[in-house]
């Protein structure tokens, strides 16, 4: 299965280990990700706060570049996923916007007819791969490990078609398939604060605190995420949460691909696990190869 790959800016920097773990696990699934050449930033939430048409336009450039390949465009980042999906939806629904985008793209000698389907990498790994393939590739079942899936916001809202917006289940099922125990907790799809961590830190820290508290209360040994910003907030700022609220969280926050990699027996450094700020202590540690 071949896809056009849209990495997004974060995997080049703060989410480097996300990319590393993706690279490590797609091979066994038979997934081939061909990076979209010369892709540009999708704009995320920040660009839309300053300019609207321009925001749609820079996002559309990527869609226009991807269209000739006649393949799904896959991205690992929830924000990129939402921006690109939204561009598609609005392109289809609002003729005025469609016209203006057409003119803008034309200025860059590009055109777009709305035929690129945007997917999140979680979606293709869980739903495009044949049933049972994931289980068959597991070489070390993560027995006894309690994992709290953290979906965050923009992978399930606003316009996702592959899971419930308030109570998604696909990652829970994936965790069980890897042999681990999925932790059900009420904050699994609630906001971590996103970019508010930069501008309104205490507020975002409080949201993260509630999240981590719920996961921990329900017995989680670690969390898994699908979004670079969520991962950063919960991992890099976990120390700040502890400092502000007097909590003693020590929950490693992995990317879901890193967890899959562990179950496949892929060594620590190949999955970029050493880059986590909250280090992998027991009970997670015993599943790591080359620890």
């Amino acid at each position, binding site marked *: 299965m071949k896809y056009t790959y849209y990495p997004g800016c974060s995997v080049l920097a703060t989410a480097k280990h996300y990319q590393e773990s993706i690279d490590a696990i797609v091979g066994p699934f038979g997934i081939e990700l061909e990076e979209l050449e010369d892709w540009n930033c999708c704009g995320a939430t920040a660009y839309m706060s300053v300019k609207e048409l321009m925001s749609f336009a820079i996002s559309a450039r990527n869609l226009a570049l991807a269209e000739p390949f006649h393949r799904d465009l896959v991205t690992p980042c929830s924000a990129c996923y939402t921006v690109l999906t939204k561009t598609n939806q609005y392109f289809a629904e609002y003729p005025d916007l469609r016209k203006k985008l057409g003119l803008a793209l034309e200025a860059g000698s590009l055109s777009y007819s709305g035929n690129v389907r945007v997917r999140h990498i979680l979606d293709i790994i869980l739903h495009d791969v044949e049933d049972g393939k994931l289980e068959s590739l597991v070489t070390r079942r993560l027995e006894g490990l309690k994992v709290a899936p953290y979906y965050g916001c923009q992978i399930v809202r606003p316009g996702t078609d592959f899971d*419930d*917006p*308030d*109570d998604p289940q696909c990652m829970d099922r994936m965790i069980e398939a890897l042999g681990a125990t999925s932790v059900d907790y*009420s904050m699994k799809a609630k906001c971590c604060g996103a970019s508010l961590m930069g501008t309104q830190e205490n507020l975002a820290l409080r949201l993260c605190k*509630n999240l981590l508290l719920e996961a921990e209360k329900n017995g989680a040994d670690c969390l898994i995420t699908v979004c670079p910003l969520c991962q950063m907030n919960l991992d890099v700022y976990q120390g700040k949460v502890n400092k502000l609220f007097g909590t003693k969280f020590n929950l490693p926050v992995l990317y879901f691909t890193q967890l899959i990699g562990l179950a496949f027996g892929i060594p620590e450094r190949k999955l970029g696990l050493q880059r986590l700020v909250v280090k992998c202590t027991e009970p997670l540690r015993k599943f790591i190869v080359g620890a």
Partner: protein
Amino acid sequence: MADRVGVYVCHCGTNIAGKVDIDEVVRYSRGLPGVALVRDYKFMCSDPGQGLIQKDIEAGLIDRVVVASCSPLMHENTFRKVCERSGLNPYLFTMANIREQCSWVHVDMSQSTEKSKALLSGAVRRAAFLQPLEKRVVPINPRTLVIGAGIAGIQAALDLAEAGKEVVLVERQSSIGGHMSRFDKTFPTLDCAACILTPRMVQVGQHPRIRLMAYSEIEEISGFVGSFKAKIRRKASCVDPELCNGCGMCWEKCPGSRVPKKGNVHEKLSLGPTTAIYMPFMQAVPAVPIIDRDSCIYFQKGKCRICEKVCERKAINYDMEDSFEEFEVGNIILAAGFQTFDPSDMTRYMYGKLPNVMTALEFEIMNCASGSTGGKILMADGSEPKSIGIVHCVGSRDKHYHEYCSKVCCMYALKFAHLIKEKTNAEVFNFYIDMRCSGKGYEEFYDRLLGEDVRFVRGKVGEISHLSVSAGEEGKLVVRVEDTLLGTVRRIPVDMVILCTALEAPAGLKDIATMCNVSAGKDGFIIEKHPKLGPVSTATDGVFIAGACQAPKDIPDTVAQASAASSAVLSMITREKIEIEAATAEIDEEKCSGCRICNNLCPYLAIKFDEEKKVSVIYEALCKGCGTCVAACPSNAIIAKHFQNEQIYAEIEGLLTAG
């Protein structure tokens, strides 16, 4: 071809005369082919106006009538009756609409006049080709089929039966009574629902003129107004109603269970026995139990048969099969009721995920004195709740589910608040968007509740969670809501949550609607003939509707509508026969090739295929003369009476050669 056409041009006061030059039109008409005389008058529909036509016909001066006036929808019938009274076949009359299609929609007088002349030219030419037609008369069978035996069906059936007419009452559940039989008290009077309903149920059960078919479904309906044929499937309940005396031995001894044996209080909620052989509630009519095969040990595992052993009347028959019965009826009243919205899809309210989140109907059942909790309000673990949150508008007023307002929820939410206050010491919160209390005594009921220390919070609940971030929230259901009147976000911990779920069209309504030849709208409810003036009739003659299957409504409105429907039916029955419109379509047997293209096109399902003759046949009584089949027939075998090709071509020629 006729050559004595009488043309009558109406002024309609200034409605027509103000924008059309009547004199010019009259002058022009005199020159049209076949016209014997032309008259004009201020109001043709008035008595003197009609008299002009009558005199001319009786004097033998004309043999065709053209009236240039308003829309046929207004006065076609009026002028047809004039012709009839004067001895001229009413179908030798046609109208030219120079009001709605001319004077009312144009501003330029000369243009309106030219258009009127053209319309008249067309009408006059058409008139020459008109043929006399005879109206058919169909008898009305005095028996009525009532589908659904909730309060609507019960009321309609009793009205008809008391008027001396026979009724066949079909109910798909094993007992009649519908949703009302599951209510504890009704708003605003707090009457006990069972107390006011059961006497009527008994009356229905004992009435000599009501043929009650419970645990039955409609299999097929054919025919047309006055003579419908209904085939009814009597489902196999495995208990013979003729032999059973309702003693209750069978369910007393039955070891099977329809609810989880180790279930909590809420999982075991019921009004009657929860065994596999059961009656839904103790006042059931007919008082005959049925066997639920999914939970019956004999049907699932082949063992047991205890009920058969203990039944003194030998009424149990495991080999019973569905049986069928056919009835001939003249009219149908569709009173299929409603069902409640399933909030499992609204994951943010946690129904089915957290205990103590219940739907309104479940809470209602819990309150019934004859129910499994004896009317006590209990949490899932059997303890008494100290606080209850009632959430309005679950599934209603929501573009993601049902856009409409379900009308009764605000009132029953208030009722619940009252019942909780009466029976427990619990704190009660009502979370609402608007308080809709428009019926008689309803606003006064709201006033009463305001005085009963109920906490009203105006805000639609965002979510229910079991996250606890503050004192008093541990182990509770936390309602997160914006108190819009205060403009603050609140987290309110409660022990129990009641979801006021929307009323929606019941499962299978579309299928029954198709069988009865009526349609359901976008919201799922049956479409009435006219939203203001025709609430109980439908586009199909002889099929009437009543109750919640037409739109969500409370009990008083349901009863009123049911009586309205039975009154409409009685009007048909007392007339004994009705006239069917004669301008229908007819298939020429000789020309029909049996291709059957027309069969599926007919919106009124009026065309059937004769297997013996291998030709299609139109049932005149169902045909509305819409012309769809006429246009579709590849062999030109179908004629639209009163709109034949020659007539239409003549009219077109008239329009084109005018001026």
